[in-house]
């Protein structure tokens, strides 16, 4: 039996909404292999962001399991899941989500604040990824002194600084012009070539071309599940 990096089994997520219930994910089954670049596409409200948060060990499903490296994410305690996110996952959020009072360097250092690495090692790692995303000369600037594309690069640097095997990106190009978006996608492709598994949520069909595989969603379900799997 083949073991996949991420396995999603019978996943179901229901949100209570007053007297009714909203089914965000409806019985999903799929897997993602190590080193893949997968896009999750769908219209707004199709459940793709919920799926990303569930896969990112941040949102407990109503039913079903998410296995990462044979580890049942929701069999872990809250604090264990935090440790898991720190070690295994890098997040690139919609709208960058940088901490406004920290410099580029400090924002990138943030995920390492709770790791046991030595100061020098942390500094080297942070400067390494800042250099990688081309912002060495802006390391001590605050986020509001950067352009949108530069802020996205900082978000990417922060996501990869701990060298996580999996990168989850939620609409990473949503707030960028097409040229900058292409640059960001090239950066993500580069990371994928280096071995990072990338799962990217987007509703932009142009971005699909950069990925190896696409999972299309509609109303919490996978369209064409056999193709997706």
């Amino acid at each position, binding site marked *: 039996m083949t073991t996949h990096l991420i396995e999603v089994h019978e996943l179901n997520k229901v949100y209570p909404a007053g007297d009714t219930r909203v089914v965000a994910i409806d019985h999903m089954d799929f897997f993602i292999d190590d080193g893949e670049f997968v896009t999750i596409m769908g219209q707004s409200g199709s459940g793709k*962001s*919920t799926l*990303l*948060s569930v896969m*990112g060990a*941040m*949102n407990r499903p109503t039913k079903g399991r998410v296995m990462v490296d044979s580890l049942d994410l929701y069999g872990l305690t*809250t*604090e264990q899941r*935090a*440790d*898991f*996110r*720190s*070690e295994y*996952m890098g*997040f690139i*959020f*919609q*709208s960058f*989500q940088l*901490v*406004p*009072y*920290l410099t580029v360097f*400090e924002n990138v*250092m*943030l*995920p*390492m*604040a*709770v790791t046991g690495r030595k100061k020098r090692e*942390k500094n080297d790692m*942070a400067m390494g990824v800042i250099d990688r995303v081309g912002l060495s000369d802006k390391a001590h600037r605050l986020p509001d002194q950067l352009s949108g594309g530069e802020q996205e690069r900082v978000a990417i640097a*922060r996501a990869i600084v*701990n060298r996580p095997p999996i990168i989850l990106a*939620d609409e990473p190009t949503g707030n960028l012009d097409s040229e900058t978006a292409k640059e960001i996608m090239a950066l993500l492709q580069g990371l994928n070539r280096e071995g990072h598994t990338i799962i990217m949520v987007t509703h932009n069909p142009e971005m699909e071309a950069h990925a190896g595989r696409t999972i299309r969603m509609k109303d919490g379900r996978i369209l064409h599940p056999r193709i997706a799997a």
Partner: protein
Amino acid sequence: MKLYNISMGNIRRRKAKMIFLALGLIIGISTVVTLLAITETMTLQIEERLDKFGANIVMVPKTENLSLNYGGIDVGGVSYELREFDQASLGKIHTIKNAKNLGVVAPKILGAAEAGGKKVLLMGVVFEKELALKTWWHKKGAFPETGDQVLLGASVASVLDQAPGKRLTIGGRPFTVAGVLMPTGGAEDNAVIAEMSAAQALLGKPGKVSMVEIAAFCRGCPISELTLQIAEKFPDARVTAMKQAVMSKMQSIEMFKSFSLGVSALVIGIGALLVMVTMMGSVNERTREIGIFRAIGFRQTHVMQIILLEALVLGIFGGIAGFILGNLAAWGIIPMVIENGGFAGINYKLGGISLLMAAALSLLASLYPALKAGRMDPSDALRVL
């Protein structure tokens, strides 16, 4: 990058809000410090006054007779059975357990003598001790320096038509009036005060004393216990503590202290509430930021540490600033509310307590907001994933 960098960064970014938060602590701590400093000054001042007030313990020979004197008026013409102590035995007073609390021990011999053709009250004293005890005595002329000089009470001087420098014959022996006391309203107004040995000789009671006035330093001294200790050494003596005045004044201070503590507790409570509300507001404002922390792998305890570190820094700042402000306020207010009162000085022990109290208060008031922040679900907090 450590967690405290995040806390300090947030404090720097939200200066206005953090100053407002610290203000709650500063006002609370400075109020406590001011009130306690005022109370401390009042206590010290009263204690100093009591120390200067003179005798607070009187030792007289035991007698079965009751005094028939009220307000200086004798009734019934009772003849008193006068008894005395041996002056040589008085050294035993300094062997009591609390001897270090004893200030001045002033013996006296009392008796009637004839002066200027009139019967007068003759009081023999050791001037050095007596003047140390009766700091409020003011005189015309000088205090006696030799055994042939006397000091006259204001009434006696008036009746005998005496003044400093004049000669006065007492019991057939010539004396010079060295000085005349200004009226005191006390028994000394009617007395001719002579050196102890001279008075003992005139009264025919060599080596005897009629009473002993003792000044014990009051600050922290157990007057009642001192009285008992002296009475144990002198079984034939009646030792009385003149503590009514002390007690009533101390009771007033105690009441003010209770009031101060009550006000302090109220102000501190309001300060704590202010800290809690502001911290809650800060946590709510930072929901998204906390969501990021949690999403990138911060544990609940890490988020709590960030919030509590901020509270600790503000608590320490509030404690120091409150202590300084409280002392400044006390320095300014005390001369206005206490007559002849001066600021008693900085109490560093109170400073330490203020600092600890402010830090503890700030931490305690921030505990619930920190718990709330720690328990935030990252996906709920971000609302974007």
